């Protein structure tokens, strides 16, 4: 029991993933700044931002106040759970339980749902625009994302347990190093970009058109929790994909190297693309990306 609480609250869970997530957020801002030929903020900037938000006043809009305040918590709790499960599997693959892949897929849908809940309960028209966009985006990227994970399941001999997916890759090489694997990986990168709300698919928070969209009514502590949720998501999503696709060698140094390389790849995509409209995003995900994912599934079934 104590061990469970320890792993949820401290080591692979809340505290650890918060620190890593906020530092990853700093890497994001710093690399962005260097791309734009600026200096960028110091490494503790995101910690300071979070601390400041926690001490600020919280303004409650008219509307459903209970949902408004609880929505950020729901997102944070579920994303922390994802970080805990993945962290424990990475430390010891034998601790994985049957079907934890499915559990993680479900838990990863909860943060967008929390954002939709919070935004709709605030009663702001711009927030509801953001919420409707978020909803459409979730519907758009979930299908190819799950197809790309099905590719991984097929390639790992039909197991839905992360521990055995890891073991399979240690024995037979990374899933990435095959035709179906690399196609599924590309699909998953785009889906992850949308899940994190990074630039080609940041219509839900488009600052220039709908003024922070879903987060417009949030201030103070609830806003801090949403920022934290996003920071932990920036830590967990790349780790999740590394586990699924590139887990041949996961010693500590390799893991950190892969994570940072992956993070910089995401940031480069973020900084070199324009924002897609929501209809373009949906067409993109349901058209070419789903087709690619389907091709990857067929290739995986053929054993390529």
């Amino acid at each position, binding site marked *: 029991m104590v061990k469970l609480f320890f792993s949820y609250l401290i080591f692979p869970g809340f505290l650890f993933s918060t620190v890593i997530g906020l530092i990853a957020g700093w890497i994001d801002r710093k690399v962005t700044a260097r791309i734009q030929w*600026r*200096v960028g*903020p110091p490494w503790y*900037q995101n910690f*300071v931002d979070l601390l400041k938000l926690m001490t600020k006043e919280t303004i409650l809009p008219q509307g459903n106040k209970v949902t408004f305040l609880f929505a950020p918590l729901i997102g944070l709790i579920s994303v922390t759970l994802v970080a805990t499960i993945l962290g424990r599997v990475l430390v010891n693959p034998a601790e994985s339980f049957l079907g934890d892949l499915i559990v993680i897929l479900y838990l990863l849908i909860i943060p967008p749902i929390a954002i939709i809940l919070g935004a709709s309960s605030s009663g702001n028209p711009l927030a509801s625009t953001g919420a409707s966009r978020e909803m459409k985006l979730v519907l758009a990227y979930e299908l190819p994302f799950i197809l790309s994970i099905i590719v991984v399941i097929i390639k790992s001999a039909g197991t839905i347990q992360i521990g055995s997916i890891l073991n399979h890759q240690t024995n037979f090489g990374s899933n990435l190093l095959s035709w179906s694997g690399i196609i599924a990986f590309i699909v998953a990168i785009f889906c992850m970009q949308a899940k994190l709300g990074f630039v080609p698919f940041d219509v839900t928070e488009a*600052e220039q058109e709908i*003024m922070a969209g879903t*987060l417009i009514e949030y201030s103070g502590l609830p806003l801090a929790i949403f920022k934290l949720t996003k920071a932990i998501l920036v830590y967990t999503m790349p780790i999740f994909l590394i586990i699924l696709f590139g887990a041949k060698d996961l010693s500590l140094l390799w893991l950190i190297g892969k994570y940072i390389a992956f993070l910089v790849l995401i940031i480069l995509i973020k900084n070199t693309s324009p924002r897609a409209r929501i209809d373009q995003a949906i067409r993109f995900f349901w058209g070419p990306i789903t087709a690619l994912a389907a091709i990857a599934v067929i290739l995986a079934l053929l054993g390529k």
Partner: protein
Amino acid sequence: MNLKLKALTKSLWVFHLCIGGSCNNCDIEILDLLTPRYDVERFGIMLVGSIRHADVLLITGSLSRKAAPRAKRLYEQMPKPGVVVAVGSCALGRGIFKDGYNTPCPLDELIPVDLYIPGCPPKPEAIIDGIVKLIKKVSGGE
């Protein structure tokens, strides 16, 4: 200096508001602050989209009759503690629109202003200097 205040001064999120009559030159100078030459993100200063996220309400332009109630509402919506910064001659004392029929009063008669940055338009250096002075004053320094 306590931790709360230190966190606030190290991460100022700015909401930029242009109220009514203005030539937008001050707005251009403010955008200069975010360019590689000045890069105020080094100090944690960011532009945000919503007033609910902001610590600084940055106002340019001379207050017009239509914009006055909106500016007041925005000030009331800003989560406290927060500061109001007026940039440019127009925001300070209505500038060349002093005798205009639709500019009833200077900004500081409507909402309390913490920092005045004069100039038409003020240079980016002047704005940075003003922010530094404000931070020093808030944190009880010089």
